[in-house]
């Protein structure tokens, strides 16, 4: 409770946050409310268990990877980090003027792809190895498909995407294999107001 302005004032460095992420004040307030709702003990930061408490996320086959994307390399997530990571999912601003010196916005196509890449690349070596691909396939398909089928799917995927024949998919190869996909549509959440 309290006025719009007073809630914004309670958040430190909120202007920087809005500038970096592109969220409007109304969005920041909503996200702040959501942050507080998830932070049940009111500590001011979130830990993996708080995300684990979201039932729909627990049901998601790659739920724990998504949680991992929030938390590695840190152990707790404060509000700023929370908003910055969620900013990846803002729709791309088509009308933004291209200033040559400004840093790339968090919700650019490239950054969205990087976020998705790290869901695959758990050991952070910059490549998706065959093993890592298998792990994701297993998570998404589970017991429904046999191990041989999983392996053949993995082999085929690597065959198609791996251009330099190192049996792993680098970020560039990942990006290239998805150049026809409308990433903005797939990796964006429509924030209301």
């Amino acid at each position, binding site marked *: *409770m*309290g*006025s*719009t*302005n007073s809630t914004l004032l309670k958040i430190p460095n909120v202007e920087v946050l809005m500038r970096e992420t592109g969220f409007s004040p*109304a969005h920041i*307030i*909503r*996200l702040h409310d*959501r942050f507080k*709702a998830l932070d*049940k003990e009111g500590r001011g930061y979130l830990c993996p268990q708080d*995300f*684990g408490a*979201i*039932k*729909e*996320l*627990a*049901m*998601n*086959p*790659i*739920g724990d990877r*998504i949680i991992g994307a929030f938390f590695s390399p840190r152990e707790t997530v404060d509000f700023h980090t929370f908003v910055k990571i*969620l900013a990846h*999912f803002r729709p791309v601003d088509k*009308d933004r003027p291209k200033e040559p010196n400004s840093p790339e916005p968090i919700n650019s196509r490239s950054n969205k792809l990087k976020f*998705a890449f790290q*869901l*695959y690349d758990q050991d952070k070596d910059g490549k998706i190895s065959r093993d890592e691909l298998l792990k*994701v*396939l297993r998570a*998404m*398909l*589970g*017991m*429904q*498909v046999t191990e041989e*089928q999983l392996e053949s*799917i993995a082999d*085929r*995927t690597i065959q*198609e*995407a791996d251009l330099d024949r190192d049996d792993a*998919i680098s970020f560039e190869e*990942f990006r290239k*294999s*998805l150049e*026809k*996909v409308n*990433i903005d549509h*797939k*990796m*964006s*959440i*429509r*924030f*209301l*107001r």
Partner: protein
Amino acid sequence: MESYLFPFDSLICMLLGISFTVWFTLLLVFIIVPAIFGVSFGIRRLYMKSLIKLFEVRALAELQDPARTQPLCSPPQWCFKRLAWATLRMERGAKEKNQHLYKPYSNGIIAKEPASLEQEIQEMRRGGAEPEFDMSDIFYFCRRGVESIVDDEVTKRFTAEELESWNLLTRSNYNFHHISTRLTVLWGVGVLIRYGFLLPLRVTLAFTGVGLLVVLTSIVGLFPNGRMKNYLSDKVHLMCYRICVRALTAIITYHDSENKPKNGGICVANHTSPIDVIILASDGCYAMVGQVHGGLMGVIQRAMVKACPHIWFERSEVKDRHLVAKRLSDHVADTTKLPILIFPEGTCINNTSVMMFKKGSFEIGCTVYPVAIKYDPRFGDAFWNSSKFGMVNYLLHMMSSWAIVCSVWYLPPMSRMEEEDAVQFANRVKAAIARKGGLADLLWDGGLKRGKVKEVFKEEQQKLYSKREPETSADAVRPKTGPFLNLLRL
């Protein structure tokens, strides 16, 4: 000095004496006597109508949703929907001061794609060759996962419903800051009335009601078992619950009373707050089920059980499901005993939806009488958020609201059919209750408020995703995907 004070002394005593007498007479005439006989003067309904007039508004035309008609640079837009007078004033005030208003939550923070997994993947496949798995398939799950981080269906049900229009209670409003003196004055007057007049009145009534319940049921308990005792016990229970109903200024409308639960059955209802018990029990006699408590609750429980058989479990017995089931079955088998009142959700939900019913009470195999309870949130939010407020705090909130207005629908009795198992029966009853009360029928378990999701749900998701994968990996021809569940509804 003393002679100076004497006249004042006796004057004050006299005034106090008179006011007490007047107070108690009014109490007796207008509240206790009608409670005993189950009649009503209609004062509460009159009060409710005048409150409605205060909140109601001239309807304004709905402006378009700003999310769609947003030019690049524009003055702040306000979304006017049907508002209460108070909110209308706030909007005008905000416009004058050129502020952004914080809008009620009713639409959620994000727009979730209604497309199913099947449609999404078909779209993804449209460009290029046809592998069975694509690197971009992960996007769907990723996006849904992040969407649920920002806004999920379950957590929403365990916080109080937000109102579109303000009912002059600060606790249900997020916009309260000084907009106009007139509004603040009105709110202040409201506070005075509620805390200065209504609250003491209600607390007095509550104590009277509870006290009478304890005393009278103990007296009835001294009678020998028989028809007289049952008759008296019914009357006593009804009277005391009716006093409690007036203590909360609860205005209840009962529908379809011909379906009221009968002996030898189980009454199930959706659960929003502990007050549900009082609401149902003031219109019919039930056997309560619950854990034995200590303290005041314990005293009340022990007194009640003297007059007629209720089912109170020790804490240790609660874990033993067979024992619980046996005691319940024994009770319903005895047709002289009252119908059992059970809330199968197991926890308080915020009255916008009905969550999964626990199957225990549906395994007993007797007639089930479903009841739907729907509160009107305009007058005061009855939802008990047990993680936020304790019981006493909650009761204080209830007693300092304007009123509690609710509707109770008695649905026709249902029995378990031959082919159904307990879970299907429970879901059937749940759907009927949700439909009648106008609540959303959710598959989620209310126990998820505190517990973890079962593995079986994750397996369901995997199954659905994999169904679009072909059985043999040899051919690259993509099979025609058959109809399957919308992932989102799970």
